[in-house]
């Protein structure tokens, strides 16, 4: 039914309208906490993000630290010297807030939305949690059991199995090798250990607080200074050790008997946020598999119907950046799907993309950056991640300029280094009885058991 695209029928784009400029006010409290405040028009809400670097200091304590961190992030809310858990939740809720605390290998993140009139009271509760969380024995016991159960549920998800296996294969004995803690170590976490961990590691120096939305910058900064002045502690919040990754050839096949799909995962290093190669690699990623208009989606989804959700991305952690490829494919086409994925990676690494492909990717990346920072919540999360990397709001404009200048040759050079299949570690989760043989026709295969089972 459809003829070739007649561009004369397609309405041209109008003149771009100016993007809003975010005026960030930055201060550092005497206790070392970095504070970033951004007033923004929009709905009458404020978004809060407090990022506390919270990494394992090295391979030796990574297992135990990860287990304790998983319990601490929930147990922090179980009580303070002044309030029990319900009291804390009620105080937050009356200002439209609900504080979440989450941990990953890099940091603790405290996050909530709130009604503007509640800024000082919510900051006061936050200060109370930071300075006087009690980790009461009996509630901690309950939290510990729930965390262990939730980990068991998470580990039954094929996507989690695949992510964990890829991380372990790439990072070996760096803390990043551990995606989820061992439930037995979780069950052994004692309240006293949590109190020690909080005292030693939940520290203002090195941490950053971001507030975005309907606020007055001076008044907000004063409220933060007043509410969090008592948060003290010696030393600096802990960043992870620099990650080096192992690059193993061949495929690790994690056996999941009876699986009706295989989870393909490829991963390797990518440039850091401050690396001049980043813009070119992000654009190479888009052309390859980073959005719907990409080569990978056209090939293994829209032409061959192997998969619903092929995707590639560039991901930044504090101590490493990654180029990642993922696709969940029908068991019977596991070999062909990997072959096509490698073929598209090879095309990227060996032959130039077209100017049209590059321009489309560039406009999409610039447009999606604008969309993702066009809400209080989106801007707050972006600024919090940048603050964690020691960067400010200016990085957004600098990166946009870098994206605008990337050439076809630079994309090829970036792909040759970062998207070439030998640079990527391969893990597949699937039914080994059905997929091992076809995969062996492509590369050596090492079959492993599901460590989570």
């Amino acid at each position: 039914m459809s003829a070739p695209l007649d561009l004369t029928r397609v309405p041209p784009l109008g003149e771009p309208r100016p993007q809003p400029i975010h005026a960030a006010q930055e201060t550092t409290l005497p206790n070392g906490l970095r504070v970033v405040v951004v007033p923004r028009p929009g709905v009458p809400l404020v978004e809060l993000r407090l990022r506390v670097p919270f990494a394992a200091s090295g391979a030796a304590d990574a297992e135990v630290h990860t287990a304790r961190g998983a319990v601490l992030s929930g147990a922090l809310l179980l009580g303070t010297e002044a309030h029990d858990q319900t009291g804390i939740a009620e105080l937050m809720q009356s200002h439209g807030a609900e504080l979440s605390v989450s941990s990953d290998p890099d940091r603790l993140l405290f996050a909530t939305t709130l009604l503007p009139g509640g800024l000082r009271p919510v900051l006061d509760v936050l200060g109370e949690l930071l300075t006087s969380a009690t980790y009461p024995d009996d509630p901690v016991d309950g939290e510990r059991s729930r965390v262990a159960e939730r980990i068991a549920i998470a580990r039954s998800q094929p996507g989690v199995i695949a992510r964990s296996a890829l991380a372990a294969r790439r990072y070996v004995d760096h803390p990043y090798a551990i995606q989820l803690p061992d439930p037995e170590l979780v069950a052994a976490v004692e309240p006293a250990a949590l109190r020690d961990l909080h005292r030693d590691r939940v520290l203002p120096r090195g941490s950053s607080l971001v507030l975005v939305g309907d606020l007055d910058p001076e008044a907000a900064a004063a409220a933060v200074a007043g509410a969090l002045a008592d948060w003290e502690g010696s030393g600096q919040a802990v960043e992870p050790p620099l990650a080096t990754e192992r690059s193993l050839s061949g495929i690790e096949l994690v056996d999941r008997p009876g699986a009706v799909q295989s989870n393909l995962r490829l991963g390797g290093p990518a440039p850091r946020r401050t690396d001049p190669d980043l813009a070119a690699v992000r654009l190479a990623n888009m052309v390859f598999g980073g959005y719907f208009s990409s080569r990978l989606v056209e090939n293994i989804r829209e032409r061959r119907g192997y998969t619903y959700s092929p995707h590639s991305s560039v991901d930044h952690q504090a101590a490493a950046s990654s180029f990642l490829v993922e696709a969940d494919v029908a068991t019977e086409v596991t070999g062909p799907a990997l072959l096509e994925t490698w073929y598209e990676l090879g095309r990227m690494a060996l032959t130039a993309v077209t100017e049209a492909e590059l321009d489309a990717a560039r406009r999409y990346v610039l447009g999606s950056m604008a969309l993702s920072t066009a809400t209080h919540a989106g801007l707050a999360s972006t600024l919090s991640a940048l603050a964690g990397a020691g960067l400010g709001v200016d990085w957004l404009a600098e990166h946009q300029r870098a994206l605008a200048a990337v050439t076809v040759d630079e994309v090829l050079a970036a792909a040759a280094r970062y998207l070439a299949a030998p640079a990527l570690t391969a893990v597949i989760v699937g039914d080994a009885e059905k997929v091992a043989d076809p995969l062996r026709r492509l590369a050596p295969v090492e079959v492993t058991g599901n460590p989570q089972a």
Partner: protein
Amino acid sequence: VRCSAGLPGGDRSHSAVSVGSVTAAGAELTLRHPVERFTLDNGLRVVLAPDRSVPVVAVSVFYDVGMRNEPEGRTGFAHLFEHMMFQGSAHVPKMEHARLVQAAGGTFNGSTHQDYTNYYEALPAEALERALFLEADRMAAPAITEENLRNQIDVVKEEIRVNVLNRPYGAFPWLQLPQIAFESFANTHDGYGSFVDLESSTVDDATDFFSRYYAPGNAVLCIGGDLDVAETERLVRRWFGPVEARGVPPVPPTGEPSPTRVRSGVVEDALAPAPALALGWRVPDPVTEFDSYLGTVLLAEVLSEGDASRLERRLIHDDRIAIAQSSYVGLFGDPFDVRDATLLTTQVHHPAAVPAERVTAAVHEEIARIAGDGVAAEELRRVQARTEAQLLRQADSVLGRTLGFAAAELIHGRAELAGELAARLASVTPEQVQAAAGALDPGTVAVLELRAAGGPR
């Protein structure tokens, strides 16, 4: 299409509002912008919701056909057809819809719901006319070919494997609970579709479905964000005006008699390491009994929103018989985008050592406590403040706000309702919540147990 294509199982989202000034929780809530609307000669209803604070525009088309409209033997067809709408159209080759949106710096998707199917783009404001061209072109003539249909049947089967068959708790409880809670085919069948039905779908089926349900008179076009009303009306008339008018099917009644007894069922999950439980109660008609329905919506929040909620305290912290709990109204968690019949669902994951009956009894007890003693005004005021913040958060995104206006226009006939929700919820009284709890009769509940049959693998 990727990432939603529609079936956000268990995902909780609220409709959008646009609120100008809030002096304090529950105080004066006013619409920032009036909603403009007009109807084209071909019957297309058009809603414009301008807001020029960020240079972003959202374009959405809602067709009044969803999973509940599927005929017997064609389960999953509404969703399969949604995929077909991305396969190109009269003047747009395959893949070019995505390229034209994304190369303009925009994002797009579509999703299939119980009572409607939507398509949308969020773009830089200068790309507005391009999005109108794309939506009008596929409203007039999508590329329904044998090759595209076979390809998308394969893609949808992989979507079902990702979200249902290859994972623990896949589509729990939205696929299985309605089978127990309701009687009619419309309300009970699998909206993702059986592989048998999907594979036997033909081009003729798709053409008939398009002809019947995708008439301009059966759709709402809603545009929000950085737009000039007069100029946008001119562009809408230019691109959508020529789309040929067709007959519009009547909205089929999906309501059914309320249950009079307990119904229960068990699903075995070979991949799940721990059991789960879903309880569903029939609730008032979301459209014709809106006031009492609002009481039910807030009851769900009182029961399960946050650490201070009734079921979080009872099940998780006091009795320690559950790992996680949530309660929500509407099959996918949006109470304001569904027609009758619908449920309040309480969903609980619990340890294997805790019998399901113990969890059920505790839930019934907590609801009976509200039905008997009511809720304190202070408790309800806190819950209302939290609900208001969540509605505002949704409305901060141009796309979220636009989808909320569109759903309100389609389901309730009034886009403005989306802007009034915060105020309407803020005026709900403790008596309304108490009455809503009284209607959750333990004698008419639908109970679905998920048994963990395989453990981790």
